[in-house]
């Protein structure tokens, strides 16, 4: 209900003065991304991303539905991002603010429009059955850079998710349970990562990954989405203070470095999680005594 309190004049003056000297309140460099922490849940498709104090959870789920009539060979992929009071008391449930619309559009452009998932691989029976993959993003804590954090979370969750295996016999479609057949990962074509830059003092100072306080004081911002192959998936600088073209290019090049680092971290975390699961599953297989009794009940 209450509006976010604006930073006081003192805070504003302090932050801007520090920026002019090249210092940030949390001690980072101007072009330093906060430490990214990615952890996965028990079930497939749950990713918890911490970017400093910003915390975002993304959950991916899939169900079988009918495809859109104008796209019979593709599955459906949708992302929902709803800002709620848990992230910050300034957000209200149900009220679609400008910030929420922009956030939703940015994530959609970055992940959906750039074809991070091969939607044709989600098709089961053309025109009749397809997978509808849904990514829900929950914002738990807002300390700036919501777009960056939610993009990493969605990409991590998509990479982590396993859908049930499907076999098609003519018209009949059998969806195997997770225990019957090994679940199948989604076909991910590339991993887009968003990086947001904030501009201060007429474009003279450029920051990467602003905290909430810096976000409230910034004069303009730009979000660039890249993948580690050096492809720019989207650029969104919607107004705010004007910047020079060279600054834009410099930001894009800086963003590429960050994106490569984050993608590497993501791959590492996915591998660790996979190794953990394999170890756990193997341990389960090792103790066979109780299992024999349980298995006879199913047969």
């Amino acid at each position, binding site marked *: 209900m209450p509006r976010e309190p604006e930073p006081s004049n003192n805070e504003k003056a302090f932050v801007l003065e520090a920026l002019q000297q090249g210092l940030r309140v949390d001690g980072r460099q101007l072009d330093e991304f906060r430490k990214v922490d990615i952890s996965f849940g028990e079930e497939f498709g749950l990713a918890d991303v911490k970017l400093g104090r910003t915390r975002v959870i993304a959950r991916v789920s899939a169900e079988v539905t009918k495809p859109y009539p104008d796209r019979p060979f593709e599955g459906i992929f949708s992302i929902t991002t709803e800002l709620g009071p848990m992230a910050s008391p300034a957000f209200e449930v149900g009220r679609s603010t400008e910030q929420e619309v922009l956030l939703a*559009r940015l994530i959609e452009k970055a992940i959906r429009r750039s074809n991070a998932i091969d939607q044709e691989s989600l098709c089961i029976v053309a025109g009749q059955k397809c997978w509808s993959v849904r990514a829900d993003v929950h914002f738990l804590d807002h300390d700036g850079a919501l777009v960056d954090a939610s993009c990493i979370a969605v990409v991590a969750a998509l990479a982590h998710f396993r859908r049930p295996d499907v076999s098609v016999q003519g018209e009949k479609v059998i969806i195997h349970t997770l225990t019957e057949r090994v679940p199948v990962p989604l076909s991910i074509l590339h991993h887009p990562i968003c990086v947001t830059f904030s501009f201060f003092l007429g474009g003279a100072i450029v920051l990467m990954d602003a905290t909430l306080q810096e976000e409230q004081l910034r004069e303009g911002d730009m979000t660039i989405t*890249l993948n580690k192959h*050096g*492809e*720019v998936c989207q650029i969104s*600088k919607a107004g705010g203070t004007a910047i020079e073209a060279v600054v834009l290019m410099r930001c894009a090049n800086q963003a590429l470095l960050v994106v490569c680092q984050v993608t590497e971290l993501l791959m590492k975390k996915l591998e660790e999680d996979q190794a953990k699961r394999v170890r756990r599953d193997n341990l389960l297989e090792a103790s066979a005594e109780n299992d024999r009794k349980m298995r006879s009940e199913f047969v």
Partner: protein
Amino acid sequence: MPRIQVKQPFFANTTYFKYLQLTPAMSRYELLSPEGLRIDGRRWNELRRISAQMSTQSAADGSSYLEQGNTKIICTVTGPAEKGSGGAGGEGDASVVFEVNYAAFSGTERKKRGRGDKRVAEMQSALQRTFGSVILTHLFPRSEIVITLHILSQDGSVLATCINATTLALIDAGIPLYDYVTACTAGSSSTYMPGEENADPMLDLNAIEEGDLPCLTLATVGGGERIALCNMENKVQLSRLEGIIAVAVGGCTELRVVLDGVVRKWGTEVLRRRGESERVGGKGDT
């Protein structure tokens, strides 16, 4: 007359190539002919024909009608006026509110857009933030400037044309701006064919080109290099980005000259009409 050798792509002998030639859909290969002409006969760095009029609506404080090729947009400005029910006191500087209406007949298929269309909301927000920092809002505290855009015909570069039309309408309304905001689109015409690495980016894309090429909308303030808005929704290699931005900045500079010419011509016309009406009104000359 030397025979012009049409360069064949490396897969020319495959069935896929023959399929491409049979399908009516435009492939990148056809968007730029070997002679360097685009589908509408322009070269890579040519803007479309621009036709602009100011003060088209007498009821509004400022209005303009802009045509860039076949993209036609009407813009009306009302304000600065008192805020409707904006609450007591207001928040200091003037607020700039945009309303964008796509006419149902503007596209190739009739489509009525709902109220909560996210793309339109995003566009409105982008325009608001762009002009919010160019209009001298501190001169009109606690008031509101409402800008309405009607898109009558879409043929690519819609956001860019909206920005240009808004600039003209704001000037017509007499609202002080720091400088002209001009916008245009540019796209990378580099295809998957080898040897096309240095293909020139194309300026001012129409609808067909926009559907096929990665396209960037860029708005600059004052015709220089200060970028107010930069939007790209497709994938492009980072190495190509600089070229596309450079071409778009050049296009914006050219557009500023064109729009300035329109404003000056209209200004001269207004003075001439006023001079005539004074003479007719019987002031007489002494």
